[in-house]
């Protein structure tokens, strides 16, 4: 139940190839996240799986069955949209009941599932309201409720938290993760937010211009990015990338060092880089220091302890932790 395979899938809009031939397997029960900058084709890929877009070539298989030509309604998948896409003319109860009613489920069974879903999503008091009378978070819960009650083969999420404010987003993120642990159903989640990807995924698929740059667990991607793009995209704050003389010292075209893998000191050490503090962002638990004057990387970001006291204009010396340096060749690929 819920193993999704894409075989040589291609999508073209007129002459523009949005997704060049692509292969991907999402295992049963997996939480897969498609992440990438806007316009990278991640939503298109999700819509191809959903059936809302037709593949120009290739095959989409769900549990071994070729569904490439099957309409979205018959693929047994549920989708949660960024815009929630609730039916504004129906109450919350009717919205949630809709897919079950379409499937011809008995009224008793419908009510049972609605009650259960409403309870788990804290919607019990809102069942008789219309979507227009709900807040953004509540609306998104209704959309999730509508997806849950069908007990689909897989859930598809298309940037479901993008329209919510930051605080709500963190809460909903947890709720979706917990839901996945509870239901053990395959979930595919599209986001441009790499924090969401890192925190939720079993498997992250990093996309750029329709091409899969890397597939792996969050830690694999963090520890061994396959190329410069993944290195720069995964991790927050971003990895510092240096080229030129500093990189040549390590026999590489580009080297990368994460902000948390740089030691700072106020005194010069052997092999340390000298820079000047630009901005220090104090978050309480951490301080992100943006440092100018390092050749090949300006500004360089360093993650330091919460109580470090530096101010604008201070001279500072940086030593990268050698074991955490990522080396990349001229074509951007990782040097082992």
């Amino acid at each position, binding site marked *: 139940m819920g193993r999704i395979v894409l075989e040589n899938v291609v999508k073209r809009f007129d002459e523009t190839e949005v997704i060049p031939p692509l292969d991907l397997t999402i295992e049963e029960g997996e939480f897969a996240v498609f992440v990438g900058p806007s316009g990278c084709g991640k939503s298109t890929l999700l819509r191809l799986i959903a059936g809302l877009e037709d593949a120009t070539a290739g095959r989409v298989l769900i549990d071994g069955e070729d569904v490439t030509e099957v309409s979205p309604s018959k693929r047994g998948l549920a989708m949660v949209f960024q815009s929630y*896409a609730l*039916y504004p003319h129906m109450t919350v109860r009717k919205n949630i009941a809709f897919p079950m009613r379409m499937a011809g489920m008995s009224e008793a069974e419908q009510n049972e599932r609605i009650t259960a879903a409403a309870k788990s999503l804290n919607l019990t008091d809102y069942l008789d309201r219309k979507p227009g009378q709900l807040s953004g978070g509540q609306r998104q819960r209704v959309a999730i409720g509508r997806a849950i009650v069908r007990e689909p083969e897989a859930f598809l999420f298309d940037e479901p938290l993008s329209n919510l404010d930051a605080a709500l987003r963190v809460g909903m993120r947890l709720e979706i993760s917990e839901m996945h642990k509870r239901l053990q159903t395959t979930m595919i989640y599209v986001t441009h937010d790499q924090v969401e990807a890192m925190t939720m995924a079993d498997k992250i698929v990093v996309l750029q211009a329709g091409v899969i740059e890397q597939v792996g667990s969050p830690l694999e991607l963090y520890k061994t990015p396959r190329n410069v793009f993944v290195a720069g995209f995964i991790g927050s704050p971003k990895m510092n990338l240096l080229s030129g003389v500093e990189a040549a010292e390590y026999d590489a075209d580009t080297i990368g060092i994460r902000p948390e893998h740089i030691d700072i000191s106020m005194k010069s050490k052997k092999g340390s880089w000298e820079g000047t503090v630009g901005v220090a962002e104090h978050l309480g638990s951490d301080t992100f220091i943006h440092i100018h004057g390092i050749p090949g990387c300006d500004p360089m970001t360093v993650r330091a302890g919460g109580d470090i006291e530096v101010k604008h204009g201070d001279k500072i010396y940086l030593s990268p932790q050698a074991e955490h340096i990522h080396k990349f060749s001229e074509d951007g690929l990782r040097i082992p």
Partner: protein
Amino acid sequence: MAIVAQTSKLGTVGRPILAWIVALLFFFPIFWLIFTSFKTDADAVKPEFLFFFTPTLDNYLNMTENYDYWRFATNSVITSVLATAVALFVGIPAAYAMAFNPTRRTKDVLMWMLSTKMLPAAAVLYPMTFLAKGIGLFDTHFVIIIVLALINLPIVVWMLFTYFKEIPKDIIEAGQMDGVNTWGEIKEILIPLAWGGIASTALLCFIFCWNEAYWTVRLTTTDAATLSKLIEGNRAPEGLFFGRLSAVSAAAVGPIVVLGWFCQKQLVQGLTFGAVK
């Protein structure tokens, strides 16, 4: 500042006056029609009774026996209602397809549909008449319903298309994901969401059908003749009976004026929809 204040003052007084003048100008023919319908045929043509006369209800009271008003009225209702139904039945799926599954040619198709409205009706008068007679449909409700539905179809499709465009595509796609087929999308999602738009389109289509005269006059004689035919048929042979003619005309336009009055809000929304978001 002073200038601005003065202009707006002039505007607050001037604009309603202007609006009243225009409105009265438009309403005058209707008013005169109703006014004349209370004169006798003899009085109606005499200049001395232009404004002052003894009003009479005879024209209305005798209408049923003089003209068989109810038969014509029934035909008008039947043809207008059914033609509107046919136009919607064809127009809703057409507009739905173009609004939610557009292709590179959708705009061209819409333009082509609209361009058919530019064809002078007279150009197809003979083919249509011969065709209707040839297949034995001349002077039947059927042919009038089909013709009225067809001539209004471009407007119906255009209006519905504009309304449907306002519905987010996500909602339709959510429906697809929730397991509805195409008919289900139209019935369960599209029609309830676009209900206001469909109602004003239907209303406008009904009004156009009711008022249509070119084809209803030419493709009918008695059996399917509508109120337009009644008015048209009563002008000539016995000379002009202005009183009676006015009464019958007033009775013909009356229902639609009343309907329009009650549905003003819907109509205005229908005509200006999409002009500003």
